[in-house]
Each structure stands twice: as C-alpha cells, then as structure tokens.
C-alpha cells in the first residue's frame, strides 16, 4: 500500500469530490462530527501536530463566531432562552444550527487544507493536460509566473535598497515605489511572453496529435482506493437519500431516522473519511516492521 498523498491524481480528485459533497450536504450532527474529527486527523497525519494551531486559530473561532452570529441574528425556534430589548426571541435552535454550521465550515476548511497539501501543481497539470491542454498550459504558466513575479519584486526592492533608492524616504514614497515596481514586473512578464511563445513554438506547440506525459501511474493501490471510496460513497449516499441523515432545526431540533440501521451509514461514512488515514498508517506500520527487521540484522 502506498501513502494517500501518492495516489493517482484523478483518483484523489474523485475521493475529495465525494468527501466534499457529503460534508456540505449532510447536516446531521453525527455526520458533521465525523467530518470534523476525521478531516482534522487526516490533516495532522499529512502535516503534523502543527495543524492544531490552524484548528485553534481559524476553526475554533469560526465555530464560535458562526454559532453566536446565527444565534443572535435568527429569531426562529421553539425553545426561547430570553427576549431581547426590541422584543425578539433568542432561541436555542439557531444556536444549535449555528454550531453545526460552524463545525461544517471547519471540516471543509480542513478538507481543503489536506487537499491543497496532497494535490500539488504537478497533479493539477496532469489532470488538466489530458482533457484541456490549452487550459493546462495556461495554468502551468500562471503557476510559474506568480512566484516569479513575487521573487523579482523582492529582488528589485532589495536592489533599489542597495543603492539607496528604497527604504529611506518614508512609508508613502515606499508604497508608491512598490506599486511602480509591481507594474514594471507585470509589463516585464508581458514582454517575456513573446520570448516564451517563441520557445513554445520552436518546441512544437500547436502540432496536432500531441500526447501527454505524467509522472503518475495508476497502480493496484489506486484501484483499491477507488473501489473502496466508490462503494463507501454509494452506501453513504443511499443512506442520505433514504432519509437516514435527515435532521430538523426549525422550529425544533430533531434527528429523524437515527437508529441501528443509520449506524451502518455512519460507519460507512467514517470509513470513507478515514481512507487516507488507513493508507498512511498502514505505511507507517510497514516501515516500523522494516526497521525492526533491519535492527535485528
């Protein structure tokens, strides 16, 4: 088994589409709790314990803000907590809805974070290159240009500081100078596009019957991930469509059809979201075994 971050790019995209669709569409607290916990665990497995900093700095405040915002601005619900000065009811149900929405948003942030980590620009080009060559070329050039403009901008500021033309005249002048530099970087990019187009054409850009090269191979592990994901996604979808994820927040909070059968769908959804963890952990176990064997030898 290989790490999930080495998955064949289209398989990774299919997986994340499933995960995002379910995270965004399922409003049942159990589904959302699974989304949040599993996406946090996956993100930690890729990027380490530092992800907790992101969680504390961004996700927890998001949950608090959305809960309070929804609670105090929405006045529907059966369970009245207190009345505001203007006569509006502050009810429990909007707070609950706000809380689960906050959890949902946090889960989506963490899912996108882990997606961003594993889905590098190489994989994006690989996916686009097969279906949309021109778009793929435009994306790859944009991915190249943006950091290049940034680097040149910093080099120019540094170079001008080296001859005393930047940094010594006050913030306003520096800001104006930075704007001029940025404008010149952009016009330089436009100028260079002529040279780049020559380079592309001289290497055959525009020839019919071009092919696509990718570093990625669709292996046996990718087949397993794909089959596993599809089967679990289908079962989860069946559960949601059958009403096993239905929940009411307005005017009262009620989790409908939450019984022993819904447990099956919860477990399937949990397994779907832990696919990356399962593959990453299996690799860790394997390497620990190798270490033991090599230490014994």
């Amino acid at each position, binding site marked *: 088994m290989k790490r999930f971050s080495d998955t064949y790019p289209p398989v990774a995209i299919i997986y994340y589409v499933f995960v995002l669709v379910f995270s965004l569409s399922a409003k049942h607290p159990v589904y959302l709790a699974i989304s949040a916990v599993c996406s946090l665990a996956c993100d930690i497995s890729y990027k380490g314990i530092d992800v907790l900093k992101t969680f504390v700095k961004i996700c927890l405040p998001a949950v608090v803000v959305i809960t309070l915002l929804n609670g105090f601005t929405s006045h529907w619900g059966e369970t009245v907590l207190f009345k505001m000065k203007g006569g509006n009811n502050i009810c429990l149900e909007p707070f609950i809805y706000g809380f689960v929405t906050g959890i949902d948003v946090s889960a989506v942030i963490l899912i996108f974070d882990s997606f961003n980590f594993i889905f590098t*620009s*190489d994989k994006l*080009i690989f996916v686009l*290159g097969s279906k949309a060559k021109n778009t793929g*070329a435009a994306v*790859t*050039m944009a*991915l*190249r240009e943006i*950091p*290049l403009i940034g*680097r*040149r901008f910093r*080099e*120019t500021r*540094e*170079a*001008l*500081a*080296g*001859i*005393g*033309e930047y940094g010594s005249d006050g913030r306003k002048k520096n800001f104006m100078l930075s704007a*001029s*530099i940025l*404008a*010149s*970087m952009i*016009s*330089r990019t436009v*100028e*260079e596009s002529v*040279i*780049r187009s*020559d*380079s*592309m*054409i*001289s*290497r*055959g*850009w*525009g*020839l019919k*019957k*071009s*092919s*696509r*090269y*990718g*570093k990625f191979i669709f292996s046996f592990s990718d087949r397993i991930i794909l089959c596993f994901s599809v089967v679990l996604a289908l079962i989860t979808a069946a559960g949601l469509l059958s009403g096993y994820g239905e929940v009411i927040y307005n005017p009262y909070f009620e989790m409908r059809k939450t019984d022993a059968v819904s447990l099956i769908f919860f477990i399937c959804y949990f397994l779907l979201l832990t696919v990356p963890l399962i593959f990453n952990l299996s690799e860790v176990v394997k390497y620990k075994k190798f270490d033991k064997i090599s230490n014994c030898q």
Partner: protein
Amino acid sequence: MEKYNISIDSFKYALSEKEALNNISLSVKEGEFVIIAGLSGSSKTTLIRMLKTSISPKGEFSGKIEFEGRNLNTVPFREQTEKIGYVNQFPDAQSVSDSVWHEISFGCENLGFPPQKIRMMCGETCAQLGISDLWNRKTDTLSGGEKQLVNLAAVIAMAPNTLLLDEPCSNLDPSSSEKFYDAVDKLNKEQGITVILSEHNPEYPLRFADRIIFLDSGKISGEAKPQNIMSTEDKTGFIKAVAPDSMKILNPFLSGELPLTVRDAENDIEKLLSENKISVSKSCFPKPENDSGQKKEYAIKLKDVSFRYEKKGCNIIENTTLSVKKGKITALVGANGSGKSTLLKLCAKVYKPQSGKLTVNGKTALLPQEPLSLFFKQTIEDNLKISADEKEVYEISEKFGIKNILSSNPFDVSGGEIQRAAAAKTFLAKPDILILDEPTKGMDKLFVSDFEKILRDFTDSGRTVLLVTHDMKFLSETADEICFFFDKNVSGLLGAREFLYESRFFTTDACKIMRKYNDAVTADEALKKITKI
C-alpha cells in the same frame, strides 16, 4: 553532408531602413561545432534565428537557406521541430512550466511521443547532462546555470540533430557557463549533434569549436579555425579581447596554430625552451609596498558577523571577520551558492547581521547580480534620472557607452548593455564604497578593459570597491586584495598577485601556464618574462 547552406544577400527588419544582414555566405557541415562571434549589435541573433522558420524574424529577406539539401521554407514544421533545437539567452523567459519534469517533457509531448518513450528520452537526457537530481524540483528554485541546463535538456530530449544556441551564457557567471559548454561539447562529440553557437565572449567554447565566424555589423568579417584566430584581421580589437591567454602568450613565438588550453600552452613552451627558441625569466615581479607600518583606514569592518535569512534556517555567514581597506579594490571569490552575495548585501546594509559588529564608513551602492532588478521605469534614461540630473546622466552614459540605448526599454536591450547600464546607475548613486556582484557578467570583453580603468580611477580618488566575481582575468587586472569565501567564512586577505599565484583553481590561465617559471598573472606580464632567442 552539409547541414546548412546559407546564402543571404540581405535582410532588413520590417519598418527598418538599415540592413541587419548583408552578403552572408557560409555552410555548416553535419556534426560541426561552429561559433558565430561578434560584438553586441553585430546581428548574431538575427542570423541564428533565420536558421529555423518558426523563430525567423519578420522582414525583407533576399537569399536562400538550405537545410539538409532542401530549402528551409519547404521543410515541414514538424520536421524542423524534431531536428532543430533552439536555446536563447534568457533562462527564465524561455521556460514554460513551473516543474522541471514538465519543462523537459514539454517538447516530447508536442511531438506526440507515447508516455513510456517520453520517460526514456527525458531520463536519458537528464542522465547525460547530469541533472537527474533536478527532475522533481520547481523551476523557480533553480539557479541561473541550472535553469539553462534544464532549457538545454528540454530541447535535447526531443533528439534534435542540430542545436542553435543564441548567447546561452550571457546571463550566467563564468563557472555556470563552463558547465553549460562542457555539456554542449559532450553532445557534439558523443552524439554528433551539429552545434551553431552565437557568442560575444567565445573564449571558453573556442576549445570545442571546429570553426569560428566573425560577424561585424551584419557582415562576415573573418572566418578561421579556433587555433588560427590571432591571424585573422582584427579591426575592432574584438579578437584580441576574447582570445584565451594561451594564445596571447604564444602568439609572438609560434607560427601556425596556437594552443587553446593551458596544457597545450605548457607543452608548447616546453618545446620552445628545449629547442632554444625562447627563454623564460624566473624573476618575480616587485611586491607592492609594505604598508604595515602605516595607519590603515578601513571602509568596511566585519567582526564575528553571523547572518541567516530565516529564524529557523541555517547561518549563511558565521563568525566572519573581514577588513576592507579604504581606497583599495578588494575581491571575494568562492564557489557558487557559498554566501558571497549575502555578504555583499550585509556590507551594503540591505540586511542587518544577527550578531557581531559591522562598521561601514561611507555611503554604499550595490550592483546586484541580476542587473535588471535596478530598472523599473519605462526607459533606461528615466531609471538613471531617479538619482541624478540630466547632465550627470549624459556624462555617465558616455563613460559606459550606453548613450545609444538611453531611450530603450531596459527589457529590450542585450545582457551586456543592461549590465553596463546597471553599473552606470550604481555610479550615479555617488557612493564612497562601491559593492559589485559579478560586475562583468555578460559584458562585452572590449568594454571590460574600460571598466577596469573606471574602477581604478574610482579608487585613486580615495574611494573603495568590494566585489565578487568568477572572472579571474578581470580580477588579475583590477584587484588589490583577494580573499576566499568558503563554509560561511572568509580566509585571510592576501595581495592579489600572492592569492592568484598560490591558488590552483581560482586563478588566471596565464598564471597556470607561467607558474613553473615566475609569478606572472596576466598574459601581458607573461610576455614581459619571455624573450625570443
């Protein structure tokens, strides 16, 4: 078979009155390595680009260019793409992708090769050029030399039989240029790829070439085998400026072919000595006056200075102590990526050291390694006028030979011209201490000797120069003191002659040739020590 048969009566760019090329007649054999050499503005780029229709300049053309016996215009686009590779002088501008692997496989994809074949072609090319470790890197993390090797690989992966190189090393430092040309020579000798190279500084690739053609104002002014270039007519002084030291030293004493390398020159001197045709003096040049008793004034003093860019990163400079004397030209040499440029930026007060003491006595101006980074306005003149008035700008442009490009956009001029313009801009800052990072990179050789004089005049007025360079010839003519930068620190400062004589690798070819006999470090000095019998 002839690879190219070129017969150009004239070529004018659209909307231009002046002929860019006139009466060009030459042929290139299969497997030949031909250099087209000339000063900036001699139309080398125009000629090279005419050899592939997809990059040919537009204009009024009269003549005929044949490729493999057929009119170039009748060779299909696909065939030209497969057979003719082109690399230009802009490492950044000609790359398409943000990943090295995608850059190298780009051409093969366009030609429609199956993925397994592309993998093999790219893998072989990377192995041949020694860049397999760069395969998974991002292009913006590469150095200039690495980028140009990747650009070469991107073209070679398509398996061309002809390579057109348009001043590929004009934006690289000498050591990166040497690596690039070594790779090109390997392709020529081991694969039989025909190479046509345009260069304004052909000194290093001369040893690989079969023939060199000199271009002057769009016309061929001479043609010779590399060993015979000193016998070619040299109205502009270009040949004398670019000829290697080995040729300059042996030219008065040998008729016929002259040596291109240090080893060949040593053998020739031994042979001439054994035949009693020359004598070589073993006396040393007078040492500079000992100023140990005099009070020294220092322009820059570093004591135990350490610096790193990021809080959690490694030190780039560690416990470095260096004293740069006022009124002298001090040079730093060392390997690429060792931290020399960082040290210059500290001295220019672009960054502050994290520890240690740095004292700078006077106003500094730094010429960065990337000269274009000093320019952000529309014209060169506008950029120069930021810190100087019109009169000063015109005076400095006369001195640096950039009067004819003042109204040009900085991104439209050649590498040599922008280097001169950047140097001029640094001088316009009126510094007490000039800090130069690879100042002769891309400069025309004819101007380098003028630049040496400008620096001498600068220090004669009591001001100071601190520079980093790989150009040992330039160092031998200008530097007063040299030190070596390695492992985040400097070695002790030595007098220039002493350093060049003691160093085995960071020295001039003249010194390597004459080391057995005396301490000459330039070709002119060597000639003073050799007498014809």
